[in-house]
C-alpha cells in the first residue's frame, strides 16, 4: 500500500487540533519506539504508540482515530516517563479520545454489561469513575 504525501495532507487542521489538545509537538518525536517498548498493554494494540505518532506526522488522522490503541492505553504514563524527547504519548492518546468523543465519531468503548458486572463486584469507585471519564467523557 502506497502513502501519497503532499503539503496539504501533512499539515491539516485535525493535526493541529491534536497538538493543541495534547500540548505535544508531534515533530519532536524521532521515532525511537521507546514508548512502545515499555508499554504494558502494547500487545493488544493494533497500532503501537510510535506508529500512532508516525501516522500523525504524516497527517493520517483518520487511521489513528479508528484505531483500537487509543482506547486500550491505560494512561500509566510509562511511555511519557521514558521518552527521550519528552513527548507525552499518554496526553496524545487522551487528546485523540477526546476528539473522537467530542465529534461522536465512534461509540464508546465501554461495554455496559461489563460495566455493571464490575460495579457489582465491589470494584473501587475510582476505577469506575476514571474509566468513565477516560473512555466516555471527552
Amino acid at each position, binding site marked *: 500500500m502506497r502513502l501519497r504525501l503532499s503539503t496539504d495532507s501533512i499539515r491539516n487542521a485535525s493535526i493541529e487540533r491534536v497538538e*493543541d*489538545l*495534547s*500540548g505535544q509537538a508531534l515533530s519532536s518525536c524521532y521515532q525511537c519506539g521507546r514508548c512502545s517498548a515499555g508499554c*504494558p*498493554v502494547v*500487545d*493488544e494494540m493494533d497500532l503501537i504508540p510510535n506508529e500512532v505518532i508516525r501516522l500523525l506526522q504524516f497527517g493520517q488522522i483518520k487511521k489513528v482515530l479508528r484505531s483500537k490503541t487509543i*482506547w*486500550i492505553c*491505560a*494512561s*500509566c*504514563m*510509562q511511555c*511519557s*516517563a521514558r521518552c527521550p524527547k519528552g513527548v*507525552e504519548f*499518554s*496526553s496524545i*492518546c*487522551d*487528546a485523540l479520545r*477526546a476528539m473522537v468523543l467530542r465529534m461522536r465519531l465512534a461509540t464508546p*468503548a*465501554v*461495554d455496559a454489561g*461489563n*460495566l455493571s458486572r*464490575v460495579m457489582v*463486584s*465491589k*470494584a*473501587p*469507585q*475510582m*476505577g*469506575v*469513575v*476514571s*474509566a*468513565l*471519564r*477516560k*473512555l466516555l467523557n471527552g
Partner: protein
Amino acid sequence: MKIPYYPGCTLHERALDFDMASRECANALGVELEELPVWTCCGAVFPLTTDSVMDILAGVRNLAYASRMGDKVVTLCSFCYNVLKRSNKVIREDEEKREKANLFLKADTDERAEMESYLEQDYVGQVEVLHYIEMLRDVVGFDKVAKSLKTSLKGLRVAPYYGCMLLRPKKEMEFDDPERPTIFEDFLETLGCDVVDFPMKAECCGGFQIVRDEETAIACSQTVLSSAIKRDADLIITTCPLCLYNLDRKQKEMAKRVKGFTKIPVIYFTQLLGIALGIDEEHLDFSDNYVDPRPVLAGKKLV
C-alpha cells in the same frame, strides 16, 4: 497533632478497611487525621488535555476546602494524590487557569457556599499535598515510627508495589525517582521487614482498563504479581485501592486461567504498619481480601 485529611470517595465507601487502618495507625503515632468537613470526589483522573479547566475543578475545590483547615492535606489513594498534586501545581503555575478556576468556584451553588464559606479568598495553591507515607517520613519521622513498633516484622518478605500514579509524571509529582523509588523500601526497613526489590514495582497493574477489558488488565497485573512471586515475596503492599482490586481480587481469574498459579496476598501498607504497631486485627480488617494474608502472617506469628 491534627492534620487535615482527604479520604476521597473510594476510601469512604469501598476501601473502608484502608481508611480505618490508616486512621488507627495515625492515632497510634500521635496524629489525628482530621477529615475535611466537606469534600467531594476528586474526579479520579487528572485531565491530560490542555483545554480543560472544568476537569481540574473537583481537585481544586477540595484543596480550597483544605486551605480553610491548614497548610497541608494528607491523602492515601494514589489517584487522589495524583489529581490533587497536579491540580495544585496548575493553580500555582498557570495564572490563566488559576483565575478561571476561582471564577468557577465562586459560582458554586449557594448551598455549598453556605456549608463552608471556603472562598473568601482565591485559592492560589497554598496547601501542600502530602501522601500519608510522606507524612510518616517528614511529619512523624520514620525514627519515631520505629520507636513506636510493638511487633517486629523480621523475616517477613514484603514487596512494595508503587504502581503508576505516585511516581509519574516525575516533574509534577516530585515524589520519588520514577525508575528506582525507595520511599516504601525505607518504610519497610523501618518496620524491620525483608524488603523484596522486584523489577515490576513501578509497572502498571492495568488500572481502569479493568472496566473496559478485564483480559488486558489482568495480564498486566499478572506480570506484576509473578515478578514479586519469583523473588520469593510473602506479601505485596500497595497504597491504591484500584491496584489492590486488580492485584488481589483478580487472582481468582488468574488462578482459573494459569495452571499452577501461586497466590500471593496483597494488602495496604497501613494494614502492615498496623500489625507492627500492635493494632488489633479487627481494626485492620482483612475480610475483604480475596487472598487472605492471615495465614502468611500467622506463619510468622504476626496475627
